[in-house]
């Protein structure tokens, strides 16, 4: 009896933590790869509608975003009202700014990739179609024909 007692002392054996950095690095690389850092701070409220027939947006680098929705903070509402507005990059824009925006987006990419570029419209669901039609019309003029209406996954009843 005494023999056993002596060996299995109360002190816990220390765990070898040498592989801990490896594990953490593995996780780190996973998150680094999957991270998409949001590049624009939103100034409009965008609650996208639900839809079932959705497709994933491939090739994030070829997507340019146009946000449409009402101003999302009290301070902004005071200056800009509650009407839906267009946001390009970091600031509010008007319809006339879209050609320049698309031109800049195109310049930033390789020439061969331009036909593959997609414009993602992130539009609040309470927005009226008038402003959306205007934007679409503008995109047609610019020959930026591939568009994606950003939606969440969900059925009819979720709306």
């Amino acid at each position, binding site marked *: 009896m005494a023999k056993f007692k002596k060996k299995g002392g109360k002190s816990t054996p220390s765990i070898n933590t040498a592989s801990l950095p490896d594990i953490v690095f593995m996780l780190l690389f996973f998150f680094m790869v999957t991270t998409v850092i949001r590049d624009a701070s939103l100034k409009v409220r965008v609650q996208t*509608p639900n839809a079932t*027939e*959705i497709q994933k947006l491939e090739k994030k680098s070829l997507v340019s975003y146009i946000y449409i929705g009402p101003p999302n903070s009290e301070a902004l509402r005071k200056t800009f009202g509650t009407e839906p507005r267009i946001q390009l990059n970091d600031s509010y824009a008007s319809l006339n700014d879209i050609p320049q925006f698309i031109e800049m987006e195109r310049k930033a990419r390789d020439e061969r990739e331009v036909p593959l570029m997609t414009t993602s419209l992130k539009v609040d669901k309470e*927005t009226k179609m008038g402003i959306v*039609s205007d934007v679409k019309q503008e995109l047609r003029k610019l020959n930026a024909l591939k568009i994606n209406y950003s939606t969440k996954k969900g059925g009819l009843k979720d709306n």
Partner: protein
Amino acid sequence: MAKKKSRSTPEINAGSMADIAFLLLIFFIVATTMDVDSGITTKLPPMPEDEQQDDSEIKDRNVFTVLVNANDQILVEGNWEDIRNMRKLAKDFVANPQQKANLSENPQVAVISLQNDRGTSYNMYIQVQNELKAAYNELRDEASRSKFGKLFADLSDDQRQEIQEMYPIKISEAEPKDVSKSN
């Protein structure tokens, strides 16, 4: 002897490696947005080069007119309809299994014409788009299952093209009213 000893690099204490890695890890966990962007993908029609009218005539029976007004009410082929019936109506129109005289002649010539008011809510617009797309997707799935025994998404490129030619998605959005009114 002494010289030799100084050349051997002193061991760097790697104990803080884990801390550094954790710091970075936490940063990236916080910065990660996991939700993938997804949505309904469509292609806008190109702008007409000049004001010439499209002279290819489309028979009335091959056009499925959907109108949405500012109150989000839907008029399908002249009748008030609920959004829930849209998918079935669109499917019937495109496929026309009973060869009715008022529905499309065949899926290749069927055109869905969608017109909305400037006051229509975006939500309703997306719902209608979604239902119309769903109708086509269901038809394509049915066709590919009966032909190849697989879902449309699982087909090879050639097979997919065949089905796409069987059921070409032709959803025409009428332009806003201030621009020339086509179809």
